[in-house]
């Protein structure tokens, strides 16, 4: 979901740790290293990588283009190919009939069938374009927080994995307990108190 959309969803994260200097060059290098790779003419089923906000289909990270004011702004892109089961079945059956007809055999054994299926699947993967999903994010490096523009569990998990792999920084999702523990300015004794509390019964 794009941060410029009329309606957005936000998941907040805290980032701990720091990147080596020169900061901008480090970020640029790491983003480029984990940039989304096109898989449209490839047998790959899925690709995950960073892309740019302005040109998500032709990402560029040169010249601090990902930097807006005090924020680093870029996006996670997940490209996925999904071949309908009925399409796979159709081409598998056609291929099998062709092999039987050409060889004069009456049937294929289990291993041969699996090989045909795998081959057909690979051919179809090359033909099918991937569907891209783009999730923007805003990183306030000085403030140590990120807003990721999606609440989808799978998108958040992919983001957490790629972010950790790319930047080797600690990323903590902010939810009731982590906000209380890390961000609410509680003293050690208050944190102890927090760890002991149990649910309130509001009704009588």
């Amino acid at each position, binding site marked *: 979901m794009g941060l410029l959309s009329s309606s957005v969803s936000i998941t907040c994260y805290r980032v701990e740790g720091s990147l080596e200097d020169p900061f901008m060059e480090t970020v640029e290098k790491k983003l480029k290293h984990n940039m989304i790779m096109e898989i449209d003419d490839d047998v790959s089923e899925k690709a995950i990588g960073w892309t740019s906000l302005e040109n998500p289909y032709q990402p560029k990270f040169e010249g601090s283009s990902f930097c807006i004011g005090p924020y680093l702004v870029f996006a996670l892109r997940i490209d996925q190919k999904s071949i309908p089961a009925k399409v796979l079945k159709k081409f598998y059956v056609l291929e099998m009939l062709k092999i039987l007809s050409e060889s004069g055999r009456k049937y294929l054994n289990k291993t041969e069938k699996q090989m045909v299926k795998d081959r057909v699947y690979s051919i179809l993967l090359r033909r099918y374009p991937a569907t891209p999903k783009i999730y923007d994010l805003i990183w306030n490096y000085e403030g140590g927080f990120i807003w990721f523009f999606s609440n989808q569990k799978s998108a958040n998990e992919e983001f957490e994995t790629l972010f950790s792999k790319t930047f080797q920084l600690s990323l903590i999702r902010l*939810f*009731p307990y982590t906000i209380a523990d890390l961000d609410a300015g509680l003293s050690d004794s208050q944190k102890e108190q927090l760890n002991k*509390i149990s649910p309130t019964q509001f009704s009588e």
Partner: protein
Amino acid sequence: MLDVSVSYNRYKFLGHEFLTWLWFLMEKDRSFLQTEVPELTSLEVGNRIVLENRFNEGVEIITIKGDDAGLEEGMLSLRKGAVVTEFHLLYTAGDHQWQFILKGESLNISNLKVPKTGEVESGRELEGAVLEKVYLFEKVIELINILYKSFIKLRISSEWKEKIVPEIRKWIYA
């Protein structure tokens, strides 16, 4: 700190209690909201509220939605032991209004609609548009952070059991 997935599940009741307390404040103690967030003009329940009642045998989910929906069912659910798990909220500051859904267990914000901003017509306008949006998102995130931090300090204090819970009960059974 506890393991993240363990703490998410073990303490998600904090988010539910926060929303329940927030509903109480919106109905009975608006001055507290205005003291905590001086620029707040109003904070109201929008067109959706979800409550959850946990029994030994299972969970009852109560969803009230619609622009003209009455909230009596919600009060009845609170009397039966439910807590608020999700809200559609309308936040007004001056002439500007924000709308969003706040989920208790994660404090995630969804369907956030901010005051109208200009259209982006060229790449050169992108930077200004992003900064404007960030400013507007920040208002909602700040609002939630300020209120949640006030809640958590209250929640771990003796005032919670001695003063706040009795007041909330009084409101529920009024």
